[in-house]
């Protein structure tokens, strides 16, 4: 099933080997039937951990239960998850241009009206809204990941026009990319000294510490997601032939 990895653009949608077709229909149907029987038959654990979480939410420093789970009860998972994001960034980032500046603005003579309008009007609004999401994450839906994703979306918009370029391999970018992990680990281990156990927030500061971690996480996630996107764009713009084709179009 993975023996041939097809990347021909115009290839047919489906492998023509009948065996894998039949087998996968059978397996998928079996899976579906079995699991649906489970769902229908089993009452299961009715409330999960909801009561326990509502009991302890007072002690977590935030009032939004999802944020409480993500950054307090199961903060270790979130830490490792940020590490997953870092893995992919490391795998994808180009390794050249270490000393080029972090942020560059290119003055382009030919302007795309729609894009520049979007940049001028929508991007600041998105930034403000992301800040709001981050701040609101403590007590209502929102948080670091959502804010980071929004900011990354705004930066995707920025790169569409080639007006702004961020060099993701500059020292500044690298520091910002690992910022959340560093802050997370530092706070986590420092708390061993103060509180006796990893990532045990003291009650008085937990809200503040969570906000600090979330802010750093937003920065890192924004940069990580934006760098993932730009890795598909940059090499296209640098290659000369592709640019030619573009101008023809």
């Amino acid at each position, binding site marked *: 099933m*993975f*023996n041939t*990895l097809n990347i021909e653009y115009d290839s047919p949608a489906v492998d023509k080997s009948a065996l894998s077709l039949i087998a996968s229909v059978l397996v998928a149907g079996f899976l579906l039937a*079995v*699991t649906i*029987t*489970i769902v229908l*038959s*089993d009452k*299961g*654990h*009715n*409330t*999960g*951990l909801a009561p*326990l*979480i509502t009991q*302890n939410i007072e002690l977590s420093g935030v009032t939004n239960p999802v944020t409480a789970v993500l950054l*307090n*009860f*199961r*903060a*270790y*998972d979130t830490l*490792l*998850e940020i*590490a*997953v994001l*870092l*893995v*992919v960034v*490391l*795998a994808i980032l180009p*390794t050249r241009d*270490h000393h080029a500046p972090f942020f560059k603005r290119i003055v382009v003579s030919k302007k795309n009206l729609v894009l520049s309008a979007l940049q001028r009007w929508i991007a600041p609004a998105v930034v403000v809204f992301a800040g709001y999401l981050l701040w609101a994450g403590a007590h209502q839906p929102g948080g670091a990941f959502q804010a980071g994703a929004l900011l990354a979306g705004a930066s995707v918009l920025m790169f569409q026009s080639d007006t702004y370029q961020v060099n993701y391999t500059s*020292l500044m970018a*690298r*520091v910002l*990319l*690992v910022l959340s*992990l*560093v802050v997370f*680990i530092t706070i*986590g*281990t420092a708390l*061993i000294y103060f*509180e*006796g*156990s*990893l*990532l*045990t*927030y003291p009650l008085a500061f937990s809200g503040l510490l969570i906000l600090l971690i979330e802010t750093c996480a937003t920065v890192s996630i924004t940069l990580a997601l934006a760098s993932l996107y730009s890795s598909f764009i940059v090499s296209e713009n640098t290659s000369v032939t592709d640019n030619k084709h573009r101008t023809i179009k």
Partner: protein
Amino acid sequence: MNELSSSLLLPAIVFLPLLAAIIAFLIGRNQLQGRINICFSLAQFLLVVLTTLLFLHEQTYQSERYVIGGWGAPLGIDLIVDGFSILMIALTGLLTLLITLYSASYFSDKYSASEKSLRFWPLWWLLISGLNALFMSADAFNIYVCLEIIGLSAAALVALQGSRAALEAALRYLLVGLLGSLFYLFAIAILYRSHGTLDLMQIAETANHSFPDKVAMILITIGLLLKIALFPLHFWLPPAHANAPTPVSAILSALVVKASLYILIKFWFDVLGATITLGASQMLGALGGAGIIYGSWCAFRATQLKVLIAYSTVAQLGYIFLLFPLSEYSMGVSSFTGSASQAAVYFIVAHACAKAAMFLAAGNLILAQGNGEIAQLKGIAVREPLNVLVFAVAGISLIGLPPSAGFIAKWLLLTTAIESGQWWWVIVVIIGGLLGAMYLFKVLSLAFSTDPAVVESPTSKSTPQVSNVMTTVALILALITLALGFNAEFILNISNTVSEVSGI
């Protein structure tokens, strides 16, 4: 609260590699990079040794929990160490130290572009921290996150080589890994639905012979078998392990497949032990047996050195899967104790050391030779005697000839099979050993052939000399393999306590 679970050590084992990854990423292209990484691996090794000694010193032989965040099991995440996980962490620490030493010279400018090393070091440390986190995790969803760290960084490391074959192998590896993790995640969702907790021990307490638990077990088994590459699902392993840079191949064969195996063993014997049936364990054993025969046969037919070793991993994994039917019979109840599990633990350690040694030696031979064709290895023993020696020693361990760790492991396996009256596994093991001898002696006899005409021609070319560090590291690993075999009694005692401990 005892010493180990109240100390800094357990989180430090996860965080030190993370810190190393961050620093390696930040310093970028720096002359000191190799040295800094060696320092980190030394620190990591010391940490692991300290932890192991502390664990053995306490002599409680019970699993110890470290509570993260002060919340406790169902709400927060716990770390847990028992004998088996301590053994795996110790193995990881040892191999990390040695392979880091190897990589420091492998990725220096002499042999390959330093561009690769810029990516290699951070990814390497992230992989190690993922492995350590996995071996200590007591939380089902946390294990999923760790599996993803391991899967993604391993695929990225395979892709480092940059050739089309390597990229394709990495892509296949990645897709298979993602598919396996999705199956695992699905099983976790079902488990959470019926048990209302993610903590492994709490799931184990309430697990029963019910239908959802069985389905979850099936899904976990399928997902993890994809990642372990048991026989019919092994198709991704040979290209991935053969095309990766040498240190990556070593860690992939030695530890990364074992990580998924560790989780499978944990679920199969500890967590969802209530759901397994005789037929299922016999089927896993049969797949393992088929893997032994098929993997050995493909290894015999391989024309590339690294492909041969990769297929040999497929075969060796098959031996470990004989654990499942044998332990079922020998104990009557499913728990990770008894002679079969002892054999499996011993096999994991022996195979990790021998396979790492073999991959490193093969990497050295390929560097000296210029390519990985087995046919071209004629007479290489004259030029690279030490590396051929390492290859031979590792091969002896893999075949299971006396003065080696592999012999002890196979001996344990055979005696367990005979004791439990399942003589058919004995036949499989013996045939596997014979086939193993066939493919390894094929290489060795070529290497030792002293046809003067052949010996002359390659030496006339100026081939790069393999650095001493790289040979030494491979030699140390081979010596460890031998030492594990010579100190059979001692090691058996340790592994005995280990397997006694690792039940709940």
